[in-house]
């Protein structure tokens, strides 16, 4: 038997949802449960949930343009150093660097209500990465150090 030498891989918690805003609560509950288990304090759990909500909302609204029948898949990868959320989708790509940090007074003058999501994600998490692919799935990766 190989048991003695076998590597043990921890299972990766996964959630698959349809691209509908009514599923955002399900996403937050999923993240909350695992972030709490990791020992993050209440405020940090709240922030991680909010960042993930913002990422999924962006995918639903902009990536999938409110098409309610597309898929979003979330994986949580926990290591001693970090709590990583990988959010997979096949929505429309965009250049995340083209999103300017919001200036509320400027936004107010422009009567613009958007643009806060990505800024919030970056403020609330330690690292945010976007990987876009025309052949494979896109990924938004959110990282919080423990």
């Amino acid at each position: 038997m190989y048991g003695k030498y076998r590597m043990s891989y921890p299972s990766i918690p996964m959630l698959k949802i349809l691209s509908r805003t009514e599923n955002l609560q399900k996403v937050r509950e999923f993240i909350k449960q695992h972030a709490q288990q990791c020992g993050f304090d209440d405020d940090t759990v709240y922030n991680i949930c909010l960042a993930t909500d913002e990422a999924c909302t962006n995918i639903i609204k902009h990536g999938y343009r409110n098409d309610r029948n597309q898929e979003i898949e979330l994986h949580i990868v926990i290591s001693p150093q970090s709590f990583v959320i990988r959010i997979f989708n096949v929505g429309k790509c965009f250049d995340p660097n083209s999103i300017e940090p919001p200036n509320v007074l400027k936004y107010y003058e422009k009567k613009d209500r958007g643009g806060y999501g990505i800024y919030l994600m970056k403020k609330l998490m330690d690292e945010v990465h976007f990987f876009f692919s025309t052949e494979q799935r896109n990924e938004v990766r959110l990282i919080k150090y423990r």
Partner: protein
Amino acid sequence: MSECKVRRRERDGITILELDGLLDAHTAPKLEQMFQTLLNDKKFKIIINCKGLQYISSAGLGVFMAYLDEVRNNDGDIKFSNMSPKIFNVFDLLGFPMLYEIYDIEEDALNTFRTNKR
């Protein structure tokens, strides 16, 4: 599924909206509908009492931004009260305290409407 109750009441001609629950991209349209109704009713002095608000995302914040201009152009304003530290933190991260008046309690927000023109 997330829920956000929006309860409307009036005090001295000032409209108070009590938010109760979770304000995200799913529930924001309900708040937006309420704002539309207020503007149709020519109610421009508005206090958002956040006592029961447990969660807000940028979709919820976007609703206030969308109506602020019209409200102020009609000698009104949108003011906030009874925010929990978690909710205030989200406002603060985005620099919203520069744009909105935020009070500890509803009475304080009411008094500024009573004493100021706006």
